[in-house]
């Protein structure tokens, strides 16, 4: 009956989702409400006196997030997080319950999972498409998945219900600052030199292909991947006769660290995985893209499942829906407007933004007050 791999994959996906889809989650929230005894009209997550989230504000902010997605690539998950924490005021609301209260931690976890729902669900479709196209390297995917599963399970297990808003803000800010530093490095002459050299080498090869039809002299005996040496710390292989090597522990450890970081911060992690695999393992984009999408998907399923199923973390569905609409509108506007803004200017805008958000959240989280306005 199961005639194709696609059907098998589909059934596996449905089975995974059956496990992932959350159970009735009233307990943790109900306990937190019972402890904090808030009063007033039901607001966010039905909490009495909780913020009345205006979906239109969510929509407008998400348009900005979508614009970033379609022009810059990464940074969308970060901005989604900023929206949840600051724009909707969920950060201040969580903080108002005090450091040790259950409500503070429930709302903090809810912010983390909401971010992951926004960024993560798309990895499912990508994985499915890459699988159909035969672009998943299963052994590498499994190595990454082992790391991802461990990281994205361990972090919710260790931190859900334990991280208060201030600590989360501090680490979130540090990560954004790190990203800002990386973006700054890319604009320096040294950072630019690498890209320039790559472009020149690619252009030189392109012209030689045009002249000599280069690329056709393939030794059929050397086709594909041939492993020369494989130990726990070293894998040497030839790929179409060209030598490559990488440490097999790196995908496992890298997958673990990236998934743990993504899970802790409530971001996707895909933007870290692809460059990691192409630069560290020297693998082709063709194969890395699908493999990393699968690792992101597995990590994401696992992380969302851990937060929602094991730790009963609630989310506001209407807000996520409105944000998705905003992302769509932003991504339509993005390509139409970005051609009027030079790449360099775009980069400087994001450096400024990353430094501002990073300094603000790090100082608010670790010092208790913001070093930049609004204080």
């Amino acid at each position, binding site marked *: 009956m199961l005639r194709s791999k696609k059907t098998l994959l*589909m059934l596996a996906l*449905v089975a995974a989702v059956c496990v*992932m*889809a*959350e*159970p*009735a*989650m009233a307990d943790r929230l109900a306990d937190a409400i019972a402890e904090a005894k808030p009063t007033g009209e039901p607001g966010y997550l039905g909490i009495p006196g909780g913020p*009345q*989230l*205006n*979906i*239109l504000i969510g929509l407008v902010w998400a348009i900005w997030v*979508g614009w970033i*997605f*379609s022009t810059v*690539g*990464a940074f*969308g998950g970060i901005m989604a997080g900023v929206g949840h924490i600051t724009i909707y005021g969920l950060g201040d609301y969580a903080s108002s319950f005090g450091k040790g209260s259950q409500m503070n931690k429930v709302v903090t976890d809810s912010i983390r999972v909401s971010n992951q*729902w926004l*960024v993560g*669900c*798309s990895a499912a*479709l*990508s994985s499915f498409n890459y699988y159909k196209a035969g672009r998943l390297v299963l052994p590498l995917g499994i190595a990454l998945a082992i790391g991802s599963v461990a990281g994205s399970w361990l972090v919710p297990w260790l931190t859900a219900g334990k991280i208060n808003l201030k600590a989360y803000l501090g680490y979130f800010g540090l990560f954004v600052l790190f990203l800002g530093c990386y973006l700054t490095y890319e604009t320096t002459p040294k950072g630019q030199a690498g890209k320039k050299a*790559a*472009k020149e*080498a*690619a252009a*030189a*090869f392109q012209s030689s292909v045009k002249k000599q039809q*280069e*690329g*056709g*002299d*393939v030794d*059929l005996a050397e*086709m*594909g991947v041939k492993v020369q040496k494989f130990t726990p710390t070293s894998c040497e292989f030839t*790929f*179409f006769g*060209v030598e490559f090597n990488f440490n097999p522990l790196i995908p496992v450890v890298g997958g673990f660290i990236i998934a743990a970081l993504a899970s802790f911060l409530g971001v996707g992690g895909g933007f870290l995985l*692809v*460059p990691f695999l*192409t630069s560290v393992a020297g693998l*082709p*984009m*063709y194969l*890395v*893209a699908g493999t990393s999408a699968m690792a992101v998907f597995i990590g994401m399923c696992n992380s969302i499942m851990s937060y929602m199923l094991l730790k009963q973390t609630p989310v506001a*569905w*209407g*807000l996520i*829906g409105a944000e*998705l609409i905003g*992302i769509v509108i932003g*991504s*339509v506007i*993005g*390509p139409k407007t970005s051609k009027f803004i030079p790449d360099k200017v775009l980069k400087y805008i994001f450096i400024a933004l990353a430094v501002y958000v990073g300094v603000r959240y790090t100082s608010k989280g670790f010092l208790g007050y913001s070093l930049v306005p609004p204080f």
Partner: protein
Amino acid sequence: MTGHMIYEFLDPWMIWAFRFGDNPYVGFAIGLLWICVVTTVIGELCMAAVYFTNKKHFASINREMVDHHNLSVRALGAKNKIAWKACNSIANDAFGKNFFSRIALFASSLWVVPFAIGWLYYRFGEVDFMVPLIGAVGPSFVFIPVYILTRYLFSVAKPWLPLFSTIRQRVLDNEAGDEMMTYMDLAKEKEERQTETPIPENS
């Protein structure tokens, strides 16, 4: 505007299907299927609208990724490691842009889902769906798998569905051009060249 107001607006459009027949289980199954089909159709139409609004952009980022990838495959075939690394890294950058654009595009087919789940909680949040070994679960436990199955079946049926088959063909036409090369294509190219220009026996 709050989520509650949206669910109140959606209610008459959604609930009628759940009242089909006298058996509540059958009614729930029909209602669930109705919501899944509606969310899938609205989502697919929105995705198509977003795609065609920016079709040049999607075609160009896809082209850049495919061209540099194909160049990297040729560089590998020529055993030119420097060119391979360069082309692969540029293809990787282009992939990043393509990937995130597609994520945003995919979101246009998904935005309906959270509203559907939210409405299910608004209507059936108080109902405990009991599942062996797991215990009480929320409405999304039943909705998400049925939605994925509906979406999958819809994608299989697309080539035969009026409007959607046209959309599919137009997307294919928009991205027509060089296919993404696989490494096996290098060998095929070589074989083709050898067939075209056979080497003389005495050479």
